[in-house]
């Protein structure tokens, strides 16, 4: 063991410092490996949109919109938004798991561009978002979702949604850095996202709601996002809402990104 150990440890040539792009991609690769080794983590991503879509379409669709066929045109973009927003929680959850397992401190002890573990993880999240989107939209198409916006409208809707999802992830990254356990991240995030997604226009048009709730739905960022995505997919883009979502995404990133990185650097 002694000689092989010596030979194995001895380094003839020290590598040069890798670029931020290279280290970020390496962390993205790690996120993919984790999906490969722990496919269970995709279970929620796959199952919850299926259940929600089927349940709402067939239980409530006829009553709410006259026919299930009519309702799914309204529901599907909303379900997609809800699904992706819930998937963003995983960003904080996986980060917190890394911290509690001690993996993150090893990364922090490496001579690399500091944000690369976080940014790399966000890259990996893209895969989760994509899978969730494909599943939800495919199911919708099977159930009779026929978006007037065509392929382009649907893709643009998904793209806008992803922009907002990445911006929102910073919230959960901060939560993941501050909260004690991965399950606490999950619990707190659910408590915030549940009311935000239900008290919105994801499932129903808010006109029949009491005025107080309607006011809340009106200012709820999720409603803006749903209206924007719905417009794009229906082929009648609502420019004001799209701009609203983009500005909100920029503000979230500009404010929360630096805060998250600061907590990340100074975390004890």
């Amino acid at each position, binding site marked *: 063991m002694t000689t092989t*150990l010596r*030979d194995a*440890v001895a380094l003839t040539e020290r590598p040069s410092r890798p670029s931020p792009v290279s280290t970020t991609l390496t962390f993205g690769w790690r996120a993919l490996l984790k999906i490969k080794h722990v496919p269970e983590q995709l279970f929620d991503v796959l199952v919850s949109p299926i259940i929600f879509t089927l349940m709402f379409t067939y239980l409530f669709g006829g009553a709410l919109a006259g026919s299930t066929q009519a309702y799914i045109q309204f529901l599907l973009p909303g379900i997609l938004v809800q699904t992706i927003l819930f998937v963003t929680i995983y960003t904080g959850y996986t980060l917190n798991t890394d911290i509690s397992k001690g993996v993150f401190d090893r990364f922090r*002890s*490496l001579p690399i561009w500091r944000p690369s573990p976080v940014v790399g993880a966000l890259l990996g999240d893209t895969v989760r978002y994509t899978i969730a989107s494909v599943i939800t939209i495919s199911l919708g198409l099977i159930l009779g979702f026929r978006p007037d916006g065509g392929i382009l409208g649907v893709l643009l809707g998904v793209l806008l949604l992803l922009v907002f999802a990445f911006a929102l992830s910073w919230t959960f990254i901060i939560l993941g850095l501050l909260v004690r356990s991965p399950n606490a991240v999950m619990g707190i995030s659910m408590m915030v996202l549940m009311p935000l997604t239900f008290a919105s226009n994801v499932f129903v048009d808010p006109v029949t709601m009491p005025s107080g709730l309607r006011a809340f739905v009106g200012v709820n960022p999720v409603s803006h996002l749903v209206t924007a995505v719905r417009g794009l997919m229906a082929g009648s883009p609502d420019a004001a809402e799209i701009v609203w979502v983009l500005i909100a995404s920029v503000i979230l990133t500009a404010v929360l990104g630096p805060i998250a990185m600061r907590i990340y650097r100074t975390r004890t």
Partner: protein
Amino acid sequence: MSDSLAVEARGLVKHFTSRKSVTKAVDGIDLSITEGSVFGLLGPNGAGKTTVVRMLATLLRPDAGTASVLGHDVVRDADAVRSAVGLTGQYASVDEDLTGTENLLMLARLYGFGPAAARRRVQGLLEAFDLADAGSRQVKTYSGGMHRRIDLAASLVLAPRVLFLDEPTTGLDPRSRNQVWDIVRVLVDDGATVLLTTQYLDEADQLADRIAVVDHGRTIAEGTSSELKRSVGEGAVHLRVAEVGDRARAAEITERVLGAEVTFDSDPHAIAARVPDAGADAVPRLLPALAEAGISVPEFSLGQPSLDEVFLALTGQPLPDDVEPGAEPGAEPGSDSGSGPGPGARESTEVSR
């Protein structure tokens, strides 16, 4: 700053504030670790050892004081420190979901190895650490010893000149512990500097050139293992008589021959005596004297005081995890070898008959 020092720390302080209480995790620690040596930070749980290592590894910012690794300041020049240091501990682990190979490959890529060079490096390390066959398995399926070896391999990907090992053998069986020790010895032979934290006296004794005993965030003693033991001042004789009835007579003879005070403990067969430096020459006469009196002594040991006793003398408290109250070291033949790090810290010459 002397260039032969691998690690230098002056007045390191780290306090943690939670709610209304302040924990003085590290409360003014100085360290000077010579290049190519093994330095042991010895202390009970919560003594502040891990906090010291985390500050030296740039994971925590000191509240006060300065520290440098190979001349690089840990705060101002953190990246240079990170390039020079390898780190292993409970808090700097590998990813259990990934395989051993994937973990090391990821680190090699993060250190800047190209794809082919990374593969070669990882293959060599896996073979050297006896993990080649386990490379394609997820780390969570590894045994404790394998897990610690992959941790060690992970901290050696860049062949660091300074290695921080935080409790590297806690929870390992004796065989795996010996493997880890062997690895550390090879690395030090090749010029690496190792800072080792441990709660095991045995481990510090076995590996470290110098030892700092820390308690409540402060260094309470520092020196080589024998210096620390000598600071307690005396050697010790432990013996067990075959017949309980002989103990009083044996004690009398021991007192007379050694000129030392004898102590008894709960074991009705056992006698212990602190041997003053002046009485050391008389020790060889003790066994013949006992034999002449017809007293059978199946166990006899002579040695420096153990680090347990040193710690006790320095702090007034035994090491919490290590000392079994009333257990007399050397009371059972062979109890000092292979019983795991712990009470077996006695550096002694055993004579059994």
